[in-house]
């Protein structure tokens, strides 16, 4: 039963942080190249444009949920399982989500990268 709690915690962390990353990425694509914008309009214009983007606000909300889910997950389960499992599964989930929701071209290079990094993160924290 405890295992079920721990893994549903991990699932919540992965879903929330993937949602957050996808929303933030979409927000920043709408804002446009920050470097160019900064040269044209200055820092405050850039910041204003980012914080008024609804996807950005939702993304930050999702990231907050992910953060608190991680805190709760760490209090229920072993640090050496929860932290690496959620970090490494998030890489794979992000590759899938970026393909379907952001329509990024996730070619074999990027799949390999996501899987290798996920494996590497799991080993580093093991």
């Amino acid at each position, binding site marked *: 039963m405890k295992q079920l709690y721990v893994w549903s915690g991990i699932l919540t962390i992965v879903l929330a942080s993937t949602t957050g990353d996808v929303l933030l990425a979409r927000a920043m694509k709408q804002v446009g190249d920050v470097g160019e914008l900064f040269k044209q309009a200055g820092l405050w214009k850039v910041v204003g444009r980012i914080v008024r983007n609804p996807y950005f606000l939702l993304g930050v909300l999702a990231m907050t949920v992910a953060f608190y889910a991680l805190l709760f997950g760490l209090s229920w389960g072993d640090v050496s399982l929860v932290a690496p499992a959620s970090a490494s599964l998030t890489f794979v989930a992000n*590759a899938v989500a970026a393909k379907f929701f952001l329509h990024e071209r996730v070619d074999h290079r990027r799949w390999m990268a996501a899987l*290798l990094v996920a*494996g590497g993160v799991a080993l580093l924290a093991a």
Partner: protein
Amino acid sequence: MTFRKYLVLAGVTVFAASGDSLLRHGMTEVGSISLNHLPDLILAILNPWVAVGILCLLGFFASYMTALSWADLTYVLPASSLGYVLLALIAKFILHEQVTTTRWLGILLISAGVGFVTQGPELTHHPPKADLKPCADEAATTRVTP
């Protein structure tokens, strides 16, 4: 990819790794905070390690957002995972902790993954929506342009 863009990606990596390790060090000095004394969490900012750690994490967020404004999520994320490698190297060469074979293998896998992704383009180019259903004269002009 320009030099400035590589600099932003390096910022993502370095700020994430240094922010995490500064916070970890600071919080061990502050000690454990119980749920009954949550206001202690605000006082934790007074610890200089925690304060600098938070500044680093703000730097991470700014450079992460900048990178996402011109590169795909599936490009930025693996590139930013080099921070884990940096943390392990800091542990080995500055803190003189023991880095096990498993962790070296993890470093190898992450580096290989980053190598794979940086070989490709950083951004997927979506055709503008108008191009999907071009009307007759628009189609003619697009054919002429090289």
